């Protein structure tokens, strides 16, 4: 890495890192109720009696951490998919991962299937299984014709699979009763109120692996953005890079969706916003997007829980309300 890039990277990491850290530290202080922080952090009080501590550690802290992880995962996966598909409109949900996850979750909700596996509830498990299935189908289709990954086939297969799964979801919803339908719609909007560390702990290893691959991917993505042929002549193994990008971003997306449902817009607006600020070099864009995505989603969640207490606005609504107009502005400005 040459010195100017390293300097830019350090500046970006410092800035976005500080932002993410500030969001994570400050977010648990805000909420629909006011708590006494000294009481909440007083270890001499028994936890079972300490309402302030429970609000802090059971309600707010897990959802802040969930927001940070999910925001980082979706934003980084968005960067990787945009780079892999060489399409600025790609999102973590473009290739059918979220639709597969949604189908899994909807099936569990309608059938009332509740089998848990090592203490994990059925909905996140089924949603992760659904996203894995979608990834496998898209990969098999995109590989079938060329041996390598054709990004065009990936894109078309993903978009078609999205539509197909959406139709299956409607079909499943048709058989659901009112209460289930309500829960399905709620799941589809996304929600960070995990109220336990369990879903975060379950997703963390998957996200760690994905982020590890992302770290390696930054340079290959820079070259892939020139096109597969040009990238090949610059000495990278295009197939390996594409595969690594596809699977790592899919795993990150599947894990994030299993924690919080398909929260929209984070995966598309954060990468674009970050590129506007730091340029197009993936070595800087990838880590910056992860940090800024974390800060953004944690911030949106604070808005969601304090906007109209005691009722909460679904965080997916906030990201879309903030993200939608911004993205349109970006589109028009760029066009």
């Amino acid at each position, binding site marked *: 890495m040459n010195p100017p890039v390293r300097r830019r990277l350090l500046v970006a990491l410092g800035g976005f890192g500080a932002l993410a850290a500030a969001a994570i530290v400050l977010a648990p202080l805000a*909420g*629909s*109720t006011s708590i006494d922080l000294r009481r909440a952090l007083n270890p001499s009080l028994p*936890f*079972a*009696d*300490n*309402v302030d*501590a*429970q*609000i802090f550690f*059971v*309600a*707010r802290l897990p959802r802040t951490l969930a927001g940070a992880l999910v925001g980082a995962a979706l934003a980084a996966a968005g960067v990787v998919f945009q780079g892999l598909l060489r399409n600025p409109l790609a999102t973590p949900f473009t290739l059918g991962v979220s639709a597969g996850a949604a189908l899994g979750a909807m099936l569990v909700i309608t059938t*009332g299937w*509740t089998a*848990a596996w090592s203490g994990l*509830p*059925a*909905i996140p498990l089924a949603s992760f299984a659904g996203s894995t299935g979608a990834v496998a189908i898209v990969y098999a289709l995109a590989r079938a014709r060329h041996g390598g990954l054709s990004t065009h086939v990936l894109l078309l297969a993903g978009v078609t699979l999205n539509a197909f799964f959406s139709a299956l979801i409607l079909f499943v919803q*048709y058989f659901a*009763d*009112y*209460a289930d*339908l*309500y*829960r399905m719609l*709620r*799941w589809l909007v996304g*929600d960070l*109120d*995990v*109220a*336990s560390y369990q879903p975060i702990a379950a997703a963390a290893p998957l996200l760690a692996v994905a982020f590890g691959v992302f770290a390696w991917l930054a340079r290959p993505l820079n070259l892939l953005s020139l096109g597969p042929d040009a990238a090949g002549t610059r000495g990278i193994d295009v197939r390996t890079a594409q595969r690594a990008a596809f699977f790592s971003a899919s795993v990150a997306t599947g894990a994030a969706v299993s924690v919080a449902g398909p929260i929209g817009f984070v995966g598309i607006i954060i990468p674009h916003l970050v590129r506007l600020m730091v340029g197009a070099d993936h070595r800087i864009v990838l880590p910056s997007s992860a940090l800024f995505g974390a800060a953004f989603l944690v911030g949106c969640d604070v808005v969601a*829980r304090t906007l109209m207490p*005691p*009722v*909460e606005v679904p965080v997916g609504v906030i990201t879309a309300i903030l993200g939608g107009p911004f993205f349109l502005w970006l589109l028009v400005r760029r066009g």
Partner: protein
Amino acid sequence: MGILTGLGARGSGLGSSGIGVWGRSGQALVVLAALLAVSIATAQERPARIISLIPAVTEMLFAIGAGGSVVAVSSFDTYPPQVRDLERVGALLDPDLERILALKPDLVAIYASQTDLARQLERAGIATYEYRHGGLKDVLTTIRGLGARVSRGQEAARAAAEIDAGLDRIRRRVDGRPRPKTLLVFGREALAIRGVYASGGAGFLNDMLIAAGGENVFADVRRESVQAASELILARRPEVILELRAEGLPGDRRRAEIDVWRRLSSVPAVRANRVYFIADPRTVVPGPRVVEGTELIARALHPEAFE
């Protein structure tokens, strides 16, 4: 509209045949025609083929003696047992217009929000009864209104009075006892405190809770349902958590679902082991069995009052 037009046509038809037979005495004719018209009108207004798309209305029709005229019900109807053999014609979101028309009903009970269906039935000349979801008081109003609509006013008045008296009996029974702050949950994700839907301070679940001698932790939220985040549940400190479900759970699953609440160990209901499951359709259908449903809730809140 359809019924009125049909009635007019038939009434005049009978009237004219009456002239042929009783033509000599004008006065007798007028009196008889009037009598005929009244009796035909009554017979006409007592529909012979009723379809109900609302489980609560189906139960009401059976409770006021109109069950024999019900020819089809919604896909969610389970009570009374007689409905099991009846034809199903969809529900709120998927009414099957074709099958409804094929059954030639003279009255269809629909949700007030089914405006498309209402228009289609009106075009087909079929009368509708529009049901609006409301509070516990509205159950009585609906029964009386429905009774008037199917010409069973007396039976309906009797049924409504019985419900009223039944609810009063429960209110008296729990009167004077401390009213526990209750979280009334009617939906959440399995094995997690996520996506918790609870009754707000409006609607018939809230009214049942109050009649059963409880106080709603969300009394200040003036709507039927509240999506209760974990922070909100912790902050409101309910003394009783009551989960209403349409279907029961096997014992170990039930145990596991109750144990999930231990994550919120500072909640008084959890500490006092006052988390209850009531798996009974009587607590969720705003029909004539609300008295029994309310009593189930009252027994959970005040077991000592029913010893």
